[in-house]
């Protein structure tokens, strides 16, 4: 039957035809255009509207941006240079960028906040990229004290004394653990508190007298601009993490009293605007402290922001806990681990890993919310833009400052949200 064809059909093609070019409308840019932009009347309409919007935006902003002045000492000079034409006056950024970034931080010390920021990434890297050696975590633990010293300066013994408190606590725990477990926990809490209250002060003063090491002290009212946003945002989020974990655990606890306290706290904080908490920090905190006590406004704001963020953090961690399969809890129980061991070794490492995107998103939100400190008179970027506009040179400038501030926020937040997306995708892969 192999020759059937030869008998029935006169001619059979036994080679492939050479490929011909697809029709003009079915290839290249045209096809892409047709399929992506003009595939129907609705799509065509949308495309035209979108093009119109882009065109309008370009026409409105383009000439203004292209015609910008970068070198001038004041808005008046800018206007003279432009001579009636529309144009941006980015000279204000050139003139004042250091204020928008660092506030009134002494100019010769700019390397300190910059170094602190660079080291932050080093400290974060073992958390962000699990492939790095675990030993880097030691640096992460040291970092808060280092950053404090870099930013504020003063005697080097103060942060060392504070850090030693944790060492004392750990030593007390290890020492007392042989005697009694419960005692060890008490010791671990009590010993550092005693250290800080009683011994840290003398330690600081004696060591400073013996070895007066330290960087130049910078008062916190010299802080401003993005420096203040970053300091508040980063310390708020890192301090709120442990608090948030405790709140989340408390909310899941069987102990009805602990649970209700946590729920009330979380719902209260989430129910009021941040601005009222900031006003509490600036106007009311002094009412709640012993008469005559007051401490630094930035510290008060950090405390309030920490409380604020911890409520949101608690919800994020709770989500992480809920997402964990029940089997994990049961496996921990089956291994005979007690509550804290189970949390430390089994539950939290997994729950926190799931929560990282949520934590990053909370941080982005918090970082953006640090702009609200302008309402209590802290000179964050917006506050400084007001101060700059109040000077005789730059009175009347507006858009350039907001564009610069917005751009910086955008770069920062966009970067972080990309990272959080990357994490989410990675987590999805891990779970498959």
């Amino acid at each position, binding site marked *: 039957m192999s020759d059937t064809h030869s008998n029935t059909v006169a001619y059979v093609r036994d080679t492939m035809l050479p490929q011909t070019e697809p029709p003009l409308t079915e290839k290249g840019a045209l096809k892409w255009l047709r399929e992506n932009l003009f595939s129907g009347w609705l799509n065509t309409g949308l495309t035209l509207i979108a093009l119109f919007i882009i065109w309008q935006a370009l026409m409105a902003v383009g000439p203004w941006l292209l015609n910008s002045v970068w070198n001038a000492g004041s808005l008046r000079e800018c206007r003279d240079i432009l001579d009636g034409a529309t144009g941006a006056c980015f000279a204000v950024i050139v*003139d004042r960028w250091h204020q928008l970034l660092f506030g009134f931080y002494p100019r010769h010390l700019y390397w300190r906040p910059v170094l602190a920021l660079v080291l932050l990434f080093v400290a974060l890297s073992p958390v962000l990229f699990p492939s790095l050696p675990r030993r880097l975590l030691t640096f992460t633990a040291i970092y808060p004290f280092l950053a404090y010293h870099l930013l504020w300066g003063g005697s080097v013994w103060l942060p060392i004394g504070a850090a030693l408190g944790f060492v004392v606590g750990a030593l007390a725990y290890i020492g007392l653990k042989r005697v009694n477990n419960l005692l060890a926990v008490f010791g671990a809490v009590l010993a550092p508190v005693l250290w800080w209250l009683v011994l840290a002060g003398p330690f600081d003063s004696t060591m400073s007298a013996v070895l007066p090491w330290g960087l130049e002290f910078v008062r916190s009212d010299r802080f401003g601009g993005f420096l203040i946003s970053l300091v508040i945002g980063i310390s708020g989020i890192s301090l709120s993490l442990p608090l948030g974990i405790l709140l989340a655990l408390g909310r899941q606890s069987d102990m009805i009293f602990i649970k209700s306290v946590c729920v009330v706290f979380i719902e209260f904080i989430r129910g009021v605007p941040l601005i009222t908490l900031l006003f509490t920090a*600036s106007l009311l905190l002094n009412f709640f402290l012993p008469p005559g006590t007051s*401490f630094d406004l930035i510290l008060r704001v950090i405390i309030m922001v920490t409380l604020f963020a911890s409520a949101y953090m608690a919800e994020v961690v709770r989500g992480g806990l809920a997402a964990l399969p029940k089997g994990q809890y049961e496996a921990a129980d089956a291994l005979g681990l007690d509550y804290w061991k189970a949390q430390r070794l089994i539950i939290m490492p997994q729950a926190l890993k799931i929560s990282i995107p949520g934590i990053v998103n909370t941080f982005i939100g918090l970082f953006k919310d640090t702009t609200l400190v302008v*309402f209590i008179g802290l000179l964050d970027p917006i506050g400084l833009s*007001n101060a700059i506009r109040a000077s*005789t*040179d730059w009175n009347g400038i507006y858009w350039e400052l907001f564009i610069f501030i917005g751009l910086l926020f955008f770069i920062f937040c966009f970067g972080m949200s990309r990272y959080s997306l990357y994490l989410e995708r990675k987590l999805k892969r891990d779970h498959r």
Partner: protein
Amino acid sequence: MKKTVFVGTFAATALVAGLANAQSTLEQVIDRGELICGSNTGQVGFGAPDADGVWQGFDVGFCRAVAAAIFDDPMAVSFVPLTSQTRFSALASGEVDVLSRNTTWTFVRDVDLQFNFAGINYYDGQGFMVKSDLGVGSAMELDGATVCIETGTTTELNLADFFRVNGMSYEPVPVDTAAEAQQQYLAGACDVYTTDVSALASSRASFATPSDHTILPEVVSKEPLGPAVRHGDDNWYDIIKWTLMALVAAEELGVTSENVAELAEGSDVPEINRLLGVEGGFGAMLGLDNEWAARAIAAVGNYGELFANTIGDNSPIGLERGMNALFADGGMMYAMPFR
């Protein structure tokens, strides 16, 4: 009774600005090594940081004079920028030692909020600024106008009273800061910008073409501005009050920043001698040393010099002395006798 509060952070001891105690304000200031002065968040001429973050201005200059009187260093001041909303709480809570931020001396602030005003360093009044091409010549023609106003100030209350009493209507546009108010006014979002005449003048001076704007003749309120301290520390109140007096007295007596060093050697005018600490030992009575006033004057000049350098003839703002001239020159500035 020294109380310490465990703040729970490693930073506590360093960041704690003033731990509680029964120390007098002066002792606290000396211990701290600097004066903390509540200032404006940014008002040209009165108090604003320059490009290097150094605070400049009339109210700022007064704080520098106090710092010079205490420390012999006019730069030993840190300035806490306060909005009109946060200023009184900051003073009441002890966050600042003195509030020098164009604050009007009123009954409620003095009695109910419990502050002491150390005197008046600027006699002001609330006025209105309009664009010249609007063709308005009097505040009585403002019926139906849109008015930009800073919230949380006495001007807000005066404005409401003024329009109600005169049976006119208006549309208030409340704004948070002076910079914002100017922006709104320049953009035409309001017809009228109202605030203290001094601030109006300083704003007007900073506009691109000041002649396009008119400050209307009506002054609708009395706004005596002055530095304020908390109730409860009379010695501190005296220091602030008499530093102000010393600056005014120096102008009355012809003591300037140039000749103060020479006059402090001794002169044949007894009041100058008492002022500059050659006679009388007045500084010691305040808890300072006797050259306190001489140092304050050397640092910022007498009242007239301070005025001229920050908001008067020698500055871009160019305010007239007007009511703030010395009493002898037909104004209202008058120092109590140093005796």
